[in-house]
């Protein structure tokens, strides 16, 4: 019988020994950033501007939560880079469809091949 490697004895790098004060400060920062999103929602800015500002704030919130609440900062740097780069690449690769979304917005038809260029 093949035994699985015993990894139970290896301790995680994140030890959760930070002070409660640090956690509360991060929590308050997250609350302030969340409140900022609500302020942006009522600001006198167009939808695109609101979207950009809210996205920026949301990324800042997510960064704080990832690094300190989820203790990614305390893990090995290589692991942190693995999570950030891998996830970031997947998220960025999803953004290819916006040109088609803009086409829908202006009511433009699907692009058609010029006659004679594509064999029928």
């Amino acid at each position, binding site marked *: 019988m093949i035994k699985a490697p015993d990894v139970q004895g290896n301790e995680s790098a994140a030890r959760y020994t930070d002070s409660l004060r640090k956690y509360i400060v991060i929590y308050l920062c997250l609350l302030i950033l969340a409140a900022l999103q609500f302020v942006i929602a009522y600001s006198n800015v167009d939808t695109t501007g609101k979207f950009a500002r809210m996205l920026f704030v949301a990324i800042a919130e997510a960064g704080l939560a990832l690094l300190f609440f989820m203790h990614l900062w305390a893990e090995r740097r290589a692991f942190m880079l693995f999570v950030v780069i891998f996830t970031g690449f997947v998220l960025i690769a*999803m953004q290819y469809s916006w040109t088609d979304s803009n086409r829908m917005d202006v009511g433009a038809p699907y692009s058609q091949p010029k006659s004679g260029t594509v064999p029928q």
Partner: protein
Amino acid sequence: MSHADQMLQAHPPGMTTGIPPFSIPAKKMAIWLFIIADAATFAACLVAYGFLRNGSPNWPRPFHSITNVAAMTFILLTSSLTMLFGVRAAKAGDRSGAFRWTMITAVGGVIFALLHIREWLELIGEGMSLFHNPWGNPLFGASFFSITGLHLLHVTGGVIALLAVGIRYRGGRYQADDLEVTGLYWHFVDLVWMFVVPFVYLLNLAQ
């Protein structure tokens, strides 16, 4: 240099040393891989939602009040903090404290879910369904219910996990690492909400 880097200098990882990749225990690595995959799932939903919203000139803006969503956000953020307290207590060996904070976190999740369901019922009462609403593009209902429903499903699953792991941790069957893994999932649910609120709610406030 992080603590893990120092540890790895003394014990370099590899197949022969028994140290797992990135010096991460197997359960924790599994939940991180799940989180990465789940982040892609939510991102795909939000991008599809953005695609529809951007391409629709008559996208509905049905939300008149932010009170409910603000309360939900506050509760979810606070539950993340109580989860941290729980894991911290567990790592310090305080089983009763860790159990108490975990149960407080679960209660926060239940309140969040109840507020969410109340909001859904209000919208349904105003005539919104998956493929129909009285305000504009009928796809609004489908995208709104699918994104918030997926998140609500995660919250519900998280509450069940918190209850199960918390009780078994108190009974000595689970260890602090198990509570930490559950906590990572709970923080991720909170993280996703930070993107759902602005894009699904705040950009659709009634003018």
